[in-house]
């Protein structure tokens, strides 16, 4: 991102639009009529229209030239939803860019204006019907027909749209599992109900809200506060305990379980045939679990 050299110049291609072809036909007819009937002013107007169209073509080409577009990583959707791929548009020039659209296959965005030195993010929707890795082919393009709609300038983005799709979220909640008693484990992560029992060294992954600021200020070291576990629950989301019709349904239930427990802030682990994820909590842990669910059964 810090490179000051411009991205390799992406070629802007200019083509007549359907309206442009009609315009060409009309222009030819006008010229022919003026020629045949000797209409001097008809000539003049036809030539003006021709020059105007070429001028407009030039402006359409310039409208897209120099525009920078980067495809950003998309947030993973759930199966049955829509993946939105953000495209970051940057206008480094000093002039306003008009009516720029993104086009991907049959979908095209609404036209947007880009003021000078502006940055705009547009989202490309791609349907994600199945879980797993979604690799969407096709061409992602920036197009513009400004100012007269007679020409279309196209800028192709050399990027591939791929994203990991998580399983569908089940409408039924995950059945409650048996709870396992807490282990007196020095490796346990502290939970937050209970009494304050002391400090220990900060380990990456400890919740920030347990960080002792006073210790940090005094000693310059990061320490986490410890509390007693009121009721250390560790939940396991177990494949074997899902009673569902088929594998996909099971995965859906497990997915629902992960999301529910994540939002409750509990610790949980995931057990899949061939894979077990130790209990944990936090966003990273949830993503790990979802990823495992998404990729379950796919070849390595």
């Amino acid at each position: 991102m810090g490179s000051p050299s411009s991205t390799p110049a992406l070629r802007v291609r200019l083509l007549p639009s359907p309206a442009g072809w009609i315009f060409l036909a009309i222009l030819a007819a006008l010229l022919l009529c003026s020629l045949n009937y000797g209409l001097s002013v008809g000539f003049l107007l036809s030539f003006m229209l021709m020059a105007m169209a070429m001028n407009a073509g030039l402006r359409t080409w310039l409208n897209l030239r120099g525009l920078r577009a980067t495809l950003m990583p998309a947030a993973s959707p759930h199966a049955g939803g829509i993946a939105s791929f953000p495209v970051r548009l940057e206008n480094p020039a000093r002039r306003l860019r008009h009516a720029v659209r993104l086009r991907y296959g049959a979908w095209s965005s609404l036209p947007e204006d880009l003021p000078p030195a502006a940055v705009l993010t547009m989202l490309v929707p791609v349907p994600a019907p199945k879980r797993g890795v979604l690799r969407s082919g096709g061409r992602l393009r920036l197009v513009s027909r400004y100012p007269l709609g007679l020409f279309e300038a196209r800028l192709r983005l050399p990027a591939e749209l791929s994203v990991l799709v998580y399983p569908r979220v089940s409408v039924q909640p995950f059945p409650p599992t048996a709870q396992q008693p807490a282990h007196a484990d020095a490796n346990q992560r502290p939970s937050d109900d209970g009494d304050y029992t002391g400090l220990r060294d900060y380990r990456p992954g400890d919740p920030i809200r347990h960080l002792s600021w006073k210790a940090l200020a005094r000693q310059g070291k990061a320490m986490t506060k410890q509390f007693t576990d009121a009721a250390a629950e560790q939940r396991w989301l177990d494949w074997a305990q899902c009673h569902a019709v088929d594998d996909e349904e099971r995965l859906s239930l497990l997915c629902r379980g992960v999301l529910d427990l994540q939002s409750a802030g509990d610790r949980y682990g995931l057990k899949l045939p061939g894979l077990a994820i130790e209990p944990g909590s936090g966003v990273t842990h949830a993503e790990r679990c979802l990823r495992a669910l998404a990729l379950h059964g796919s070849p390595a």
Partner: protein
Amino acid sequence: MRRLLLRLREFLRRDTSPAIRPHQLAWCGAAALTAVLPLLLHLPWWLGVITLAAGIARPLIGRHLPARSARAVIAAIAMLGAGLVYMRYGGWLGRDAGAALLVLMLGFKFLESRSEGDAYTLVLLSYFLVVMNFFYSQSIVVTLYAGGSATLSTAALVALTASRPPTVLGPVREAAVLLLQSLPPALLLFLMFPRLSVPFWGTTQEAQAHFGLSEEMSARSLGSLARSDEVAFRVSFPRLRPAGAQLYWRGPVLWRFDGHSWRRGRADWPQPELPTQGVTIDQIVTLEPQPDRWLLALDVPTGLPEDAMLNRQLEASFRHHDGGRRTYQVSSMVGGIVPVSLSAEEWRAMTALPADAAPRAKTLAAGWKAESPDDVSIVRQALRQFAFQPYRYTLTPPEVKGDPVDGFLFDTRRGYCEHYASAFTVLMRAAGIPARVVTGYVGGEWNEQGEYVKVVQSRAHAWSEVWLRNRGWIRIDPTAAVSFARVEPGVSRLDADLVPVRRRGDLSDLGSWMDEAWDYMDYQWTRQVLAYDQEAQQRLFDRYMPYTTPALMAAAAIALFAATYALAIWLHQWSRRRSPQDRLQRLYLRLCRRLARRRPPRVPGETARDYVLRLVADDEPARRAQALAVVELYYRLRYGRETTDITVLERMVAQLPTAALRRRSDRQA
């Protein structure tokens, strides 16, 4: 092949553009309306009603009728309209029918346009209609209006393409800029693009082409022109200017009389004999479009352009005429007498009268001849007849019963130029004097500013020529004999008079000065722009670029065209180099150059700041701090929202002392 057809069909049917929005419809409607309005003036009233109703009905149909039945209703009314056009014009080809159909098409397209693609088609059709106007008139006013109409259509296109509903003036300004920028290359192409001398199809007739002198004169044939103020032609005189009484413009000569009408005849006459005495007057004539081939010039034309010919009756005509506007040079000998001798056959033809025609006139003429057989005195008698008897000059004479000539001469005694000319010629023939009717124009208005004469259609005139022994053909205008007092009020007598030059300082002159000025502009416009045909183009090339052919000119025009666009692109590139981002980049590179002479290449993924720090890693702390400060400012300018002037950074970089070569060798050691 089949696959190709299927894809073509899909391409034609596919219209994935979004639905049309209200503001877009408003722009399209405005563009279409301005394009259509002038045409409606030339087309039947019911067409205008149908078209405007279609425009107004659009919101109603959208709201009250479902889409499919609406489409059926629209199609039915459209077909009805097309049928009416066919009935009115007897076909669908031709200027009026074509214009009518196009107007209908536009109206109905407006009515049933649903998507953005339809809107574009609508505006493009408007362009076509703007040019259709030129089939009717190419005057300055019409041209300016067409320019405005085209601007509005272009503004509509801009409004359609915009991302959000634009202001009212924004697209108009954009369109005006686009069109004005396209004017210079268009003018260039206008001058250089080759013209046709013969059309591909049809003729180059325009609206007023049905006005003109015909080859036949019967009752009321010239009357239709009598009220028209349309310009027939304009004449400049490079050297001598004729006197008012000499402004007779010679057209077709009619010498076959059947009792009711005069016609031209075709006969194998010998070559014409031209007058040798008199004053030669050169003229440059700009003739408005007329259907016939007549070359109008002062009586009698003697020096014709190359593509014209003169016949025995001294009628000048063009060999090829496509009905369009022309400019030509001609010189005439004015003096009123053409000395020529007549063969026996000619004599017979020029004195022939049908046996049953004008009995009373024949008797009258016979009486004059008996009194005094001298031709000159007979002529004088006839003129006296018109002058002293109660003849009146009027444009609306009563119907004549029976023989037209006798009825005019003895019963009604009221008529206009063709009655007088016809009657006089009949009298002459009855007296055995060869006589013929000459039609053309008389007089004109002198335009002081442009120094030319303007002749309008209402100046169409008919007079007579008689052949006197030992003299030849002499022009006699019997209408001029009618007493001035007996001209009907409100009717200007068609005198061979110039409108007198106005006295200066008179306030009422302002109006006439403006009229003159306006006509002068019109004249220049007609002569320089509208009459720019192949001949004019050739003359221009011969004068300024004598060694070029049209093909070379066309190639040069295209090359200049392309060069203009190359220049535009280069200018754009040049202005981009001045853009702030590029300047920042150059400054960064300059900074790096100042920090170290021979710089190691940048590792991929290394940020700008890290690279700079690497460059100055071995330098003293002061220099390191300076470099760091510069990079910080660079970062803020490039990626932040800071509005610090870039010149601050320029100064800082300039103040950084350049790295010495010595340091590098130190480092290596």
